[in-house]
């Protein structure tokens, strides 16, 4: 992409790296549509591309014989391809698009060349990998410690952080998969959150109404990873 400017990308990871590091990646970045349910990485298959979302949200999914459960979420704050910068070309989980959007992609070969070339670029990706690892630990904490209402609030907040505006378009069936509970559990929790004025829930549309109250309900299962991302990626030490 000859005309891609760092200042024009909406992916925060690309926007926050040094101009020199961005210049290394720039010739190999190509625009990509991120359609709903598009699979970006298949479990235990070679990773061909890393993806930098500019809009839209991707889920990391653990596929077991009991069904699918979400174990991570990636939007424009990050990139899909951590295994590559950690030195491997595959991983056991599926990465797919849950909220459609668009972004930029780079081949695994080009990404590997770039991080070989620049220590600071590699460090930038490793710091994001650390932020993502904190998010995964926080998800484990939430699943063990928090009730469905609280986990739903956390999950709505994490989506809200990654979309424009206050609307999140997803079916209850899908949210049930994300949270690892049966659909009536999600429907009831949405009903409760709406009754308490935190959201509006209309069929497959959730509208955030009171973010502060959602944060209260999500409690300490939400804020830690958010703060750690800010510290690591936006000028921390």
């Amino acid at each position, binding site marked *: 992409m000859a005309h891609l400017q760092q200042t024009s990308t909406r992916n925060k990871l690309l926007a926050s790296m040094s101009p020199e590091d961005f210049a290394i990646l720039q010739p190999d970045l190509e625009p990509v549509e991120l359609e709903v349910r598009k699979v970006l990485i298949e479990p235990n298959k070679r990773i061909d591309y890393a993806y930098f979302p500019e809009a839209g949200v991707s889920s990391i999914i653990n596929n077991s014989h009991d069904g699918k459960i979400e174990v991570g979420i990636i939007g424009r704050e990050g990139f899909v391809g951590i295994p590559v910068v950690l030195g491997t070309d595959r991983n056991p989980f599926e990465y797919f698009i849950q909220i459609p959007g668009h972004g930029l992609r780079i081949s695994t070969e080009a990404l590997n060349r770039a991080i070989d070339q620049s220590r600071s670029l590699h460090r930038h990706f490793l710091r994001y990998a650390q932020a993502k690892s904190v998010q995964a630990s926080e998800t484990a904490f939430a699943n063990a410690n928090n009730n469905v*209402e609280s986990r739903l609030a956390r999950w709505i907040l994490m989506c809200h952080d990654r979309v424009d505006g206050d609307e999140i378009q997803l079916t209850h069936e899908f949210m049930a998969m994300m949270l690892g509970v049966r659909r009536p559990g999600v429907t*009831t929790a949405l009903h409760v959150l709406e009754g308490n004025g935190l959201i509006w829930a209309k069929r497959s549309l959730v509208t955030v109404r009171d973010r502060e109250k959602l944060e209260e309900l999500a409690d300490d299962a939400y804020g830690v990873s958010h703060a750690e991302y800010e510290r690591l990626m936006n000028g921390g030490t």
Partner: protein
Amino acid sequence: MGGHNVPRYFLHLRYPAPINGYAQDDEGDELPDPSQLREHVLETARDLIRHARMSTIPNWFVCTFEVTDEAGDTVLILPFTEAVE
């Protein structure tokens, strides 16, 4: 979401609440074999009892599924107590 001939059932949840303890299901589940409906609803109730820890519902056994078909007719009322029998 599937063919037109597969019947769809909506699992509304009645739960104890000071106001409006009724979570309406707008999505429903497709069940190719309607004779499996009761078993499907029982299994859903069992899964919720086992896995869904909710502050709104400290005790699932006081809840009831009210199941309707696509015409809106109630076809099954299943108290959660029946899930352990």
